[in-house]
């Protein structure tokens, strides 16, 4: 069943490259729930947790683990008082479908909230390839707004070039800048928008390496730093500094399995503290970093 799981997950990712990896994970978990032949609710919960762990072994991003946890919480939030296990499972499946439906709308909601902050003639700086940011810029372009974008190249995987390609298709004037040129280019830009792989309890974010530097520079230049993220990326982590982020998120899944000594490896994500973030746009609304904890308490309590 583990291999099946992984296969299904990879399949989902292949089918729709535009879908967030967390959504694919949740789809996989829902399928797993449907096919599960367990006898007890507790057993079901345990097997779902182990399935999530298995999926994080494939894709180690924060969103997969947070999405899985939230899925589990959402489906168990109802009263599972039915005597018949199959009826309980049916209820859980229905809630799972509901959850999936809600989160598939989340990108559209975020785009709707954020595009109004992009004024006509704005110069935007963004970091690496983020599908949510792309969606936002798409919506803004659709509203006939004229803006230009600077994208950081974002090594080591040069994902920024991918972003630039996608933006060129939208007829948005785009420039690719070196990661080292962020300070140089910031005086020209009006606002900075980045996506997030995970939003932590303090209101900070975990994102591709280089985001922290970008945030520090924007703070120094007094430029607004906006983050766009869906609500399933909220995770119950609370890092105090860069070292405090658990190793399992810092490196890609394959690296985690093969490499023994992490001091040689370069992490692929970093943590941006909430003091550097101006606003977060989520499908729960436009939040300040301190409101993230409020939402998390509501989601998890």
């Amino acid at each position, binding site marked *: 069943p583990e291999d099946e799981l992984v296969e299904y997950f990879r399949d989902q990712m292949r089918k729709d490259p535009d879908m967030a990896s967390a959504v694919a994970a949740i789809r996989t978990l829902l399928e797993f729930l449907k096919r599960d032949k367990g006898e007890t609710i507790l057993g079901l919960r345990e097997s779902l947790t182990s399935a999530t762990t298995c999926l994080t072994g494939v894709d180690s991003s924060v969103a997969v683990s947070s999405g899985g946890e939230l899925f589990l919480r959402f489906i168990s939030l109802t009263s599972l008082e039915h005597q018949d296990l199959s009826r309980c499972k049916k209820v859980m499946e229905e809630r799972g479908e509901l959850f999936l439906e809600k989160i598939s709308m989340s990108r559209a909601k975020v785009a709707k909230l954020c595009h109004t902050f992009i004024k006509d003639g704005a110069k935007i700086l963004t970091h690496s390839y983020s599908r949510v940011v792309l969606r936002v810029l798409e919506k803004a372009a659709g509203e006939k707004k004229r803006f230009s974008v600077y994208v950081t190249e974002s090594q080591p995987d040069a994902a920024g070039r991918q972003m630039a390609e996608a933006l060129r298709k939208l007829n948005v004037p785009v420039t690719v800048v070196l990661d080292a040129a962020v300070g140089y280019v910031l005086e020209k830009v009006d606002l900075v928008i980045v996506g997030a792989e995970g939003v932590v*309890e*303090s*209101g900070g974010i975990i994102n591709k390496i280089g985001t922290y530097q970008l945030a520090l520079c924007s703070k120094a230049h007094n430029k607004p730093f906006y983050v766009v993220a869906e609500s399933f990326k909220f995770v*119950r982590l*609370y890092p*105090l*500094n860069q070292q*405090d982020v658990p190793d399992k998120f810092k490196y890609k899944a394959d690296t985690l399995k093969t490499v023994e000594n992490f001091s040689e490896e370069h992490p692929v994500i970093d943590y941006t503290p*909430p*003091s550097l973030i101006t606003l977060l746009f989520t499908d729960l609304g436009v939040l300040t970093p*301190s409101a993230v*904890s*409020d939402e998390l*308490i509501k989601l998890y*309590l």
Partner: protein
Amino acid sequence: MADSGVTEGPDKKEEIDRAKSEGKELTKEEKQRLRKEKKQQKKNKEKKDDKASQESEKEKKPLSSPPPASQPPPQSTTQKAPSAVPAPAPVSVPASEAPVPADKPAKSKAELKAERRARQEAERASKQGKKGETGQQAATSKQKAPPNELQPVVKRLPEHIQVDNPDVLKKLAKKLERQQIPLRMDYGYKVSLFSHLHQYSRKAPLTQQVSIPSTVIHPAVVRLGLQYSQGIVTGSNARSVALLHAFKQVIRDYTTPPNEELSRDLVNKLKPYISFLNQCRPLSASMGNAIKYIKKEISNIPSQCKEEEAKSKLLNCIECYINEKIILAAKAIAKSAIEKISDGDVILIYGCSSLVNHILCEAFEKSRKFRVIVVDSRPRLEGREALRRLVQKGISCTYVLISAVSYVLPEVSKVFLGAHALLANGYVMSRVGTSQIALVAKAFNVPVLVCCETYKFCERVQTDSFVSNELDDPDDLIVTRKGKTHLKDWQEVPSLGLLNLVYDVTPPDFVDLVITDLGLGMIPCTSVPVVLRVKNVDQ
């Protein structure tokens, strides 16, 4: 002031002081009334109409004693009615009614009430017509509107931060006299910035003035008061637990007097104890919450419950409270906090917090490798107690005084602080010196973690350490070195004041993380009001 025959002077001043503290809303009305008073002193009757038109807005109060429209004399007699209400009756009542020398003999209360009601109705009817011209009057009426409606907005200042106001002191003295508790006198010269707070001397404990055996105060409470005032029991957790144990003893020894209900009588019995303890040492926020809980539990006892059953139920409640809120909370917090302690950490702690010590001992037992730097400060030198406990466990510690904190911070990886209370705007109230450490840690980019149980979260809001604090015995600052005691005669130097503050307030920007119980684990400092809201909803 709720007494009859009160003169206008002190009453007015009180009103004006209160107005000033409430933000100068009543200036125009104040001036009006002052003018009114002056005229009234000369001529009585002509001013009746004047006042009548002005009192008319205040008529709107559906209070127990709304001032009647046309006749001032009944006003003073109706003032007698509110005086029957206990002292904490809304101060605005006597203030609003222009005090007039009582010259009417007391009518029966029922008659007065009927009269008042009739006048109120007539008033309201005429008010409807007069709506247009009540521009300024409406404004003043809104300000003086029934304290019932405005209660959440217009709060009385608590007594313990108004010590420089003689009227408040008079009120306090009367209240303590009624409860048969001796009043503790303030000691020594108070620094002017803090002259609104009490300052007591340890050499004059309240217990010396209490007669033995005391009929009013239970001996367990007397002992507790002595322990508080002499500093034998310190630390917010220790004080709350001691308080709860003393109250358990009180409940065990309590018998319901005939024709009384346990739920109401026991609460009334506890009030003088609480005043007594407050006089010995001002209550902490945690003690305040504990007392609120006990009072709620007592008043929820159904009336048909038998005495033995009720008592055992209450004792059980108190046990549960101590267990859940303090002991189990400490365990939960330790569990979350241990995740934040990694091998090779250098942890800085300040003073002696029972919770932080517990966390460090637990972490050491779970074989985390870390070392601790204990920061201490005069005059309490509580760090020595923390040092003793940690070294006993085998944790390697360093001891410095607070003046060396910026020297030592570059090698520190985390700062763990305890808290006395967490305020509703996210500020942390803790032992004096804590905000200093948080500030320096922030400057060095060292994360600051505050550990606090949820029962210490309080609804108060404070942005500075001046408005509400505690002044300890100034003689504690006197120290003898090399045979010389320089400050021995500080009282004789007129320009010298010794200030021994106990608490200070740390803003939430300096605190990175709050570790708490109730399943919340780690939250940012700004989420304290969220927790308060969620807790209130649950309860």
